[in-house]
């Protein structure tokens, strides 16, 4: 069997009818999940306001358009929405048949970015496309969910050691390529979503015990043989230091914590003066540290509301996982839920000093195109699975 066989047969005809024609008739818009869409757009709107507050002051003082970042973010959202429509339009089982090609292209792209990519903050992970910087690792998250889900779905929850190994290999290749960029945060997301997919796919306790052992050995190897740079170890461990030196690796974390803490219960108010946010204290605030803008300006109420929105989003994704007509849909939805949940944990945890500083964005809130597009594709997939839950398997 070829690649096609590994991922399972694609379905382009159901009941003798071409998929597209059938879908136009049967994939009913009335089975859409409007709650998921509402949550998504609430998050996006929330994020856009925060990106504006985190960038407008700096832009103004530099004599530039204060809305530049906001407009750009809204542009990404618009593109993302069209992607969402496109992705939810075709039956996801049709998408499944293209998975080997998409996966192969993703791996090639990840190799290419190591060779011709742009380096930022020591990580080589971007293509400079002139008007837009593409970060393939963000897109790869969704692709890997699709690829691993397609592989595992074929095994129908009766997983042997070789199946687990196969799934790990599929996730492992892009993970490794991202690891050498190096982008440890995104790699951690890959690890977690793969574990979640294995749990959903029916891997046994014994498999996880073995994985744990292998993981331990890998960590020892990484630290013993200087596979990662010293600064990365420092960055990963500085969060353990309770009183970080403001001039050191703990600087971002200190500023971030101060911003969130000084928000208190009610916050200082949206775009209020004298905040770390409007004064541009927190580096990368509009991207990875966007949560500090929420915490400082809108306080505990605003932060808790945001967490609630994310919880609703995850709940929706898991609910779709339970409702899916097939295992592939369940795996994809569950994988997306795990991806978002872990990113929220890693990102917000980082801003509050309980997780290391990594370049993992907050879904739908952080400024940035690649992540926004990938997340809209994920929503599209969820809607797709949800809409077709009653179709014959």
């Amino acid at each position, binding site marked *: 069997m070829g690649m096609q066989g590994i991922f399972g047969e694609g379905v382009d005809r159901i009941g003798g009818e071409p998929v597209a024609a059938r879908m136009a008739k049967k994939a009913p818009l009335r089975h859409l999940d409007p709650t998921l869409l509402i949550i998504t757009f609430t998050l996006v709107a929330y994020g856009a306001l925060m990106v504006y507050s985190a960038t407008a002051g700096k832009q103004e003082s530099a004599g530039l358009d204060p809305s530049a970042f906001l407009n750009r973010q809204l542009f990404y959202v618009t593109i993302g929405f069209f992607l969402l429509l496109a992705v939810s339009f075709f039956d996801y089982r049709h998408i499944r048949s293209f998975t080997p090609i998409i996966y192969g292209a993703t791996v090639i792209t990840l190799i290419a970015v190591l060779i011709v990519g742009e380096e930022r903050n020591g990580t080589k992970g971007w293509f400079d496309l002139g008007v837009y910087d593409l970060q393939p690792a963000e897109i790869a998250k969704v692709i890997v969910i699709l690829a691993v889900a397609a592989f595992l779905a074929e095994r129908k929850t009766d997983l042997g050691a070789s199946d687990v190994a196969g799934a790990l290999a599929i996730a492992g290749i892009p993970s490794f390529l991202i690891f050498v960029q190096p982008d440890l945060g995104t790699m951690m997301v890959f690890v977690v979503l793969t574990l979640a997919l294995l749990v959903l796919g029916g891997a046994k306790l014994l498999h996880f015990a073995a994985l744990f052992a292998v993981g331990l050995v890998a960590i020892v190897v990484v630290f013993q043989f200087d596979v990662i740079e010293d600064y990365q170890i420092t960055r990963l461990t500085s969060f353990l230091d309770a009183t970080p030196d403001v001039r050191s690796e703990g600087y971002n974390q200190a500023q971030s914590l*101060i911003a969130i*803490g*000084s928000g*208190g219960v009610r916050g200082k108010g949206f775009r209020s003066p*004298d905040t770390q946010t409007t004064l541009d204290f927190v*580096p990368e605030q509009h991207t990875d540290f966007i949560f500090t803008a929420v915490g400082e300006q809108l306080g*505990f109420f605003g932060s808790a509301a945001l967490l609630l929105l994310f919880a609703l989003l995850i709940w929706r994704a898991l609910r779709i996982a339970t409702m899916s007509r097939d295992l592939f849909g369940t795996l994809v939805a569950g994988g997306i839920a795990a991806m978002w949940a872990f990113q929220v944990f890693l990102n917000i945890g980082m801003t509050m000093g309980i997780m290391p500083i990594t370049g993992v964005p907050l879904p739908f809130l952080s400024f940035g195109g690649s992540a926004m597009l990938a997340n809209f594709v994920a929503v599209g997939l969820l809607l797709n699975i949800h809409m077709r839950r009653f179709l014959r398997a």
Partner: protein
Amino acid sequence: MERQIRRVGIALIALFLAVFVQLNYVQIFAASDIANNGANSRALIKKYSVKRGSIVTIDEVEIARSVATRGKYKYKRTYPEGELFAHITGYLPFAGEATGVEAAFNDDLSGEGGTLSMQDLQDRLLGSGERGDDVMLSIDSRLQEIARDSLGENTGAIVALDPTTGEIRAMYSNPSFDPNPLASFNTGTAEDYYQTLDPDSGTSPLVAVATRRTFPPGSTFKVLTASAALESGRFQPDSTFPDPNELELPLTNQTLTNYSNTACTGSGQIDLFTALRISCDTTFGIIGLRVPDDIREMAGRMGFNESLPLEIGTAVSRFPNIPDDEEPLRAYAGIGQGEVAATTLQMALIAAAVANGGDVPVPRLLHRIIDASAGTVSEPEPETMGEAMSAQNANDVKRMMVAVVESGTGTNARIEGIEVAGKTGTAQSAEGANPHAWFIAFAPANDPQLVVAVFVQNGGSFGAEATGGLVAAPMAKALLEADRRLRDW
């Protein structure tokens, strides 16, 4: 299937709970502590709302000043002379602790000093013109420039001070850095530049060679050894010592050899005066073995083994306490090698003690504080760290140092028309590395106006050929000549 999804769901809920618990802690329980943190913006706005006083040199060049901005922070700190005074002024970072004079005289500069004048009170009641005091340093910008230019690309330091008052007239260390980006309101700019300075390494440009780094002083230390020998009462300038080809060290089969690898005079014996003039290692090795306690006490009186009382602080220069079973090290200590390590400023103080009739002046940077709004001035009195040796012995050592420049190893520092006293040093550093070049000097010998200490790490551009006389003496001469012109002595 349901069961697996539930498992994953529970794990994800646990992640959310962890974040939520921490959110409660950060924004509710610890919020007030965090808000009062020094790096918080409100504290910073206050810090930059007062027009901080300027730092000026004795020739009235502004080397740190506050410039009005239109932003939220009313005043921005700038350092017009860039790297020239960086180690002296230090810098006022946006987030974090100030360094150098900015830190040492922060109360005066920020106008929060302990003494409150009527004018201050009036300013505060009327809410008008609140500003800090100016700090005038004893540094002369023209001499400072000559120090920088003399060092050129060489890693090292030059310290020049007035031996009677202890006022430092020039103190430059290479490499230096630009304090302006470090004081930027843009913390990203500051952080990026800070990281390029390799802040965690001991050789970072942030660490001033003159005051913060110690090196074996080599033969310049013989001035201190000679002083100790005279103070012990056991030796006179004409006391004679054996002049062997090599000095056999006790307890081992090791020997201490001279720089030339032969005896110093070839006559079989040598007197103390000649030994200093031609920098005879074996003689000072012998003194190191004979009066180790006197040398250690002398080192202590001249400032070793504790931080010098300079306003901006210094590293500790070290003279080891060598136990009996490591006796050979005492011979090396006598010639400023082994575990002896000194800052350039410390070596300047040794020369200053000789120049100042035995009294060690307290080195200082502050010339006066000027309360601009009230027009008052406060000026510190010169102080001494104590008497290191008698005036008679200081005079004897001075004569030896004059001979060094007249007809010894330091002839490159000779200046037409005046007597210069000096001592060279060519110090062994790490195995295989080129020697450090040192020179300490003062002039004129009969009425010392300026002490200069020069240190060039690993001989600078001269490499393996470097000696103190070749590399460092001409630099000291340049400083002495310039100060003579500037102050007409």
